[in-house]
């Protein structure tokens, strides 16, 4: 039961762990943006090298990244094949009905494969080397400009941190409820459509009531400790920029320069 992983953070000491989570998050965004720019083999080569650099910088075993790719592997292969078969090209190696394998198709299939894998691997780097709490702090920081639109960022970040904190708790609770219902005969995995749809209710309603109780208790506790809204409060957990954060900056600048030079316009 507890085998289900809450949080995919793996502790480590390599360089990646010293980088500020905000920098990591922005670089992840930016990297995906850069992948959109790739359109010839040189640019794919550049982006792949940069992707591999981040992987090496984590100092983690390849298995970690394979675990990230694994759930998606069929989708990746399927998409790559789709690209391969339906891409018309000059050189045709094999032809049957609407399917054809051409040199362009093969190259395109490979491109899609690289794209997919890179996006997943780079996102994995992000989640594996950063604690969920740090990610939440980074998100809060990135959302700060939303204040211009009168969005209550402080409240949103409170919601985020409460949700983060209670996911594991409610998860345990879900398991307990399911087991309790099972012990008196509930069946969550059998029966026809309607029966299965109905079987969600004995799981969901107690869960909902539980979460209501937690919400009421928690808000009472917060108010009794003097919480009056997100305005005018200090911060205990603070993110600090360091020299290590110049590296992601340089990384982005060099990557952008290379991509712009190397791609076909």
């Amino acid at each position, binding site marked *: 039961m507890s085998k*289900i*992983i*809450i*949080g*995919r953070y793996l502790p480590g000491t390599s360089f990646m762990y010293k980088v500020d989570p905000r920098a990591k998050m922005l670089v*992840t*965004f930016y990297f*995906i943006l850069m992948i*959109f720019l790739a359109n010839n083999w040189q640019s794919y080569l550049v982006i792949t090298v940069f992707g591999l650099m981040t992987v090496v910088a984590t100092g983690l075993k390849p298995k970690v990244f394979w675990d*990230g790719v694994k759930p*998606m592997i069929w*989708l990746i292969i*399927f*998409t790559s094949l*789709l*690209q391969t078969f*339906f891409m018309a090209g000059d050189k045709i190696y094999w032809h049957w009905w609407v399917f054809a394998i051409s040199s362009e198709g093969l190259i395109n299939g490979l*491109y*899609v494969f690289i*794209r*997919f894998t890179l*996006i*997943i691997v780079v*996102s*994995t780097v*992000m*989640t*594996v080397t950063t604690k*969920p709490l740090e*990610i*939440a702090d980074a*998100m809060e920081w990135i959302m700060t400009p939303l204040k211009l639109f009168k969005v209550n960022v402080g409240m*949103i970040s409170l*919601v*985020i941190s*409460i*949700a*983060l904190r*209670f*996911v594991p*708790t*409610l*998860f345990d609770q*879900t398991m307990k409820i399911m087991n309790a219902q099972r012990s008196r005969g509930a069946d*969550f*995995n059998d029966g026809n*459509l309607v029966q*299965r*749809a*109905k079987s*969600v*209710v004995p799981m*969901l*309603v107690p*869960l*909902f*009531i539980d*979460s*209501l109780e*937690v919400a009421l208790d928690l808000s009472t506790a917060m108010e009794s400790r003097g919480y009056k809204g997100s305005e005018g409060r200090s911060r205990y957990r603070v993110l600090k920029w360091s020299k290590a954060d110049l590296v992601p900056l340089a990384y982005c600048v060099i990557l952008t320069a290379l991509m712009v030079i190397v791609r076909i316009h």
Partner: protein
Amino acid sequence: MVIAIKIILGKFTVGSQLLQVGLGFIGSVMLGYLFGPLWGFAGGAISDLVNSAIFGNMGGFFIGFTLTAAVGPMIYGFFFYKKPVQIWRVIAATIVVAIVCNIGMNTLWLHIMYNMPFMKTLGVRIVKEMIAPWIQMVVTWFVLQALSRVDARLRK
């Protein structure tokens, strides 16, 4: 709390080996039903962010999917918030969500992210989206019935 519920439900699936339907949409329904379109939108977005913080995004981090996650509860909110639970509402909401979010937006994101040919991806996804909504409707119906009972008891 409902956001946390949504994330957890997203980890569960019902159905046979052949066809698996995630339960994350129940969380969307709850967000929309209880908090309305506006907060449903915010809650959906937050749930996607928290989910990616804890579990990491399968298929990479992309802001478009956050948008999809936000629009789903918003649509449910338009149909369910402060309205009586009716069969036609359930059917209409589920279909709109399936078309707008799952067929429309997500296919578009996949197209942008992975350069998949739009129409072909659509073809594959439509097969799933033809089946899944029926299951979702049935589940949504029972969930809403149960929720409105809990809700009514709370208001006493």
